[in-house]
């Protein structure tokens, strides 16, 4: 190798090392707070560990924790089902509603005020949200049943009826998160050039055709972003369900099976049942579910979605 080539190589190595040196704080951070904990969780998921003895003294059980969860633990499978209903329901219903509201707000006066009103629940602590809705859902004196009475519909036991309890909580989740989604959709809608709508009008397109063939396709990057981030958040739902239906509810007895979601199941498995191995195995199965759903969403919205980010 010629001296020039050696020098060029050294220079490249130096630059690469310098780059890594600058990156090192971030790399160390991710290593300590992400890679090592994930590796530890994976390791624990193959062991029977109750946290009362050192991890090294725990028993290696291979895939037994995974097999137990997938084949013998009815509550885990119920939690998976509930989580899928909760996540897809809150994210997609929330997005549909938010898109409608965002489009409406582009056409009304005082839109800024209404956006502020809609955003208020986003910054309200979930404990307060749970308290407020717990009161609204009370069967005898709650506003929800009073409204049903006004339209001559039968009253409901919103948080105590196993058939509707999860949906009642999903409604709260949609309400409390809609403001942020509206803001993102508003930005997306404002980014669609008017020329497309003008051209469509000239071609005789009606409002529905404009919505289906211009608005939705042009919003695909926004929909993709909201779907993926929303789903990732919704898989980890815990606080509202814990406060309204599990942890000492004031609104009667909620049927745990009807509302239990994966994050709650994992918490109970780890810290109440002291089965950390099983909880970690459950966490990894949750990770696989999130990954699978994210891929499905990316696949469905690929055209005009992912490509738009490239």
């Amino acid at each position, binding site marked *: 190798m010629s001296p020039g080539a050696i020098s060029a190589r050294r220079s490249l190595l130096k630059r690469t090392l310098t780059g890594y040196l600058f990156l090192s704080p971030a790399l160390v951070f991710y290593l300590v707070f992400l890679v090592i904990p994930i590796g530890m969780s994976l390791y624990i998921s193959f062991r029977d560990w109750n*946290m009362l003895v050192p991890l090294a003294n725990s028993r290696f059980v291979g895939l037994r924790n995974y097999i137990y969860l997938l084949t013998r633990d009815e509550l885990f499978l119920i939690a998976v089902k509930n989580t899928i209903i909760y996540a897809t329901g809150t994210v997609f219903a929330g997005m549909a509603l938010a898109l409608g509201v965002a489009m409406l707000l582009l056409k009304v006066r005082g839109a800024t005020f209404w956006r502020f009103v809609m955003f208020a629940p986003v910054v309200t602590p979930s404990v307060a949200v749970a308290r407020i809705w717990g009161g609204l859902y009370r*069967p005898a004196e709650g506003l929800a049943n009073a409204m049903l009475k006004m339209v001559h519909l039968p009253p409901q*036991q919103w948080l105590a009826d196993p058939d509707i309890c999860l949906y009642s909580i999903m409604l709260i989740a949609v309400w409390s998160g809609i403001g942020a989604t509206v803001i993102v959709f508003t930005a997306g809608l404002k980014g669609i050039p008017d020329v497309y709508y003008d051209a469509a009008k000239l071609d005789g397109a009606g409002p529905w055709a404009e919505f289906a063939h211009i608005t939705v396709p042009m919003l695909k990057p926004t929909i993709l972003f909201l779907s993926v981030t929303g789903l990732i958040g919704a898989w980890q739902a815990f606080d509202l369900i814990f406060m309204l239906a599990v942890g000492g509810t004031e609104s009667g007895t909620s049927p745990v099976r009807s509302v239990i979601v994966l994050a709650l199941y994992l918490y109970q498995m780890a810290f109440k*049942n002291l089965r950390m191995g099983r909880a970690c195995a459950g966490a990894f199965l949750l990770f696989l579910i999130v990954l699978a759903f994210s891929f499905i969403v990316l696949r469905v919205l690929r055209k005009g979605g992912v490509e738009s980010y490239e």
Partner: protein
Amino acid sequence: MRRLIVLVVCLAMLLGLAATTGSAAAAKTKLVWQVHWSDFQVEGVYSGEGANRKLVSKGLRQYVEEYMKLHPDVEIEIQSVPMEEYLQKVLVARSSGVAPDLYGVYSLWGVQLTQNGILDTPPDAVVKDVRGNYTPVSVAGTTIGGKIWGIPMEVGNYCLVYNKELLKAKGFNAPPKTWSELVDMASKLTVRDKSGVITQYGFAFLAGWESAVVHPYLGLLWDLGGDFLSPDFRKCVVNSPEGVQALEAELQLFKTGGTDPAGSVWSFPQGKVAMMIMASWYEQSLKQGLGDKYDKVVGVAPVPYIKKPVNAGYTWFLAVDSASKNKKAAWDFLMWFSADVQKPKSTTRLGDLMVETIGGLPCREIDLANHPDTLNDLYTRTFVEQLKNSRPEPNVAQGAEVKTILANEIVEAWHGRKSAKQALDDAAIKINEILSEFY
């Protein structure tokens, strides 16, 4: 230069002082006590503000300070954590090698803590004192595998709490004594609006956490002569005919319209619940919720029975960490706190704290006998009387998990999703699987 010399001398003095203080502190025996009590229970109850602020009843800190004054070589630090995080904190502290020396342990956690070597074996003097001076239900609660593991601290049990005014308005001058009377009265005391929604519950079940659902059921099960687990803990026998009958007795309240799953005991202070089975710790909340009406409204009676009166009890006990470097000092302190009888009342400090500030039932016989003013009051008197009919929940391995399974199945039956038999059969299958891991 002169300034520099002065600065150096000052620094040297400060360092010297710090070293002296440090060595003095190092010479002290330090004990860390993790408690699940709230602020006023730890710091004491005060009245007045500023200069007029006066201690009304002592909290744990005042007792600890008293001990430290008597034993200047001992320093005790109190770490207060919420009850629901208590066990997690123990686990985390243990994993990180900074475990407390003293615990207040819920008896149900005790099995795992002892099986995994977390708790220290009490000295013979402690065991002898516990066996000789405490109520049977609390001694049983502190016993795991035939061995006493600590000093009973607090015992809890259940009674029927009823609204005297609501009962009187319907012509009932006395609370129900038997379960069938309860079912009958509950349906008559229930009021519905035009749409059929209950606006006043004849009876509301305690719910929201496992013990709330399971303890009253266990009382009925034992009342009928049934059992939850076999004596050797190898088998769950809750689906016996007695077990099914006990759950069906609870379901009678739903079937006859005396309650529904939306009923909440927390609505009692608003006058929306006529009767409920409640624990001994609810007195202060009722007093706060009802204010001046408390005496007129609240009545307490033994839990209505089917065959014989039994109610479920639970115990918290004081224990020492096996990894503590100061185990002797820890047990010495606990004995001073729980067994040293004070004049003129002839009570213990732990008993005084429990009765006067915490609001719980003490476990030592003399503390139950010698706090007449507080323990003979409208609310607590019946709970104390019913200690003789209290039976402790079994101290079984994976107790919390086992109890959660039973609670979830009972709630399924309450909601009409399963029959009593089906719910208890399902519970037994799952619980047997857990028991087979440990017994």
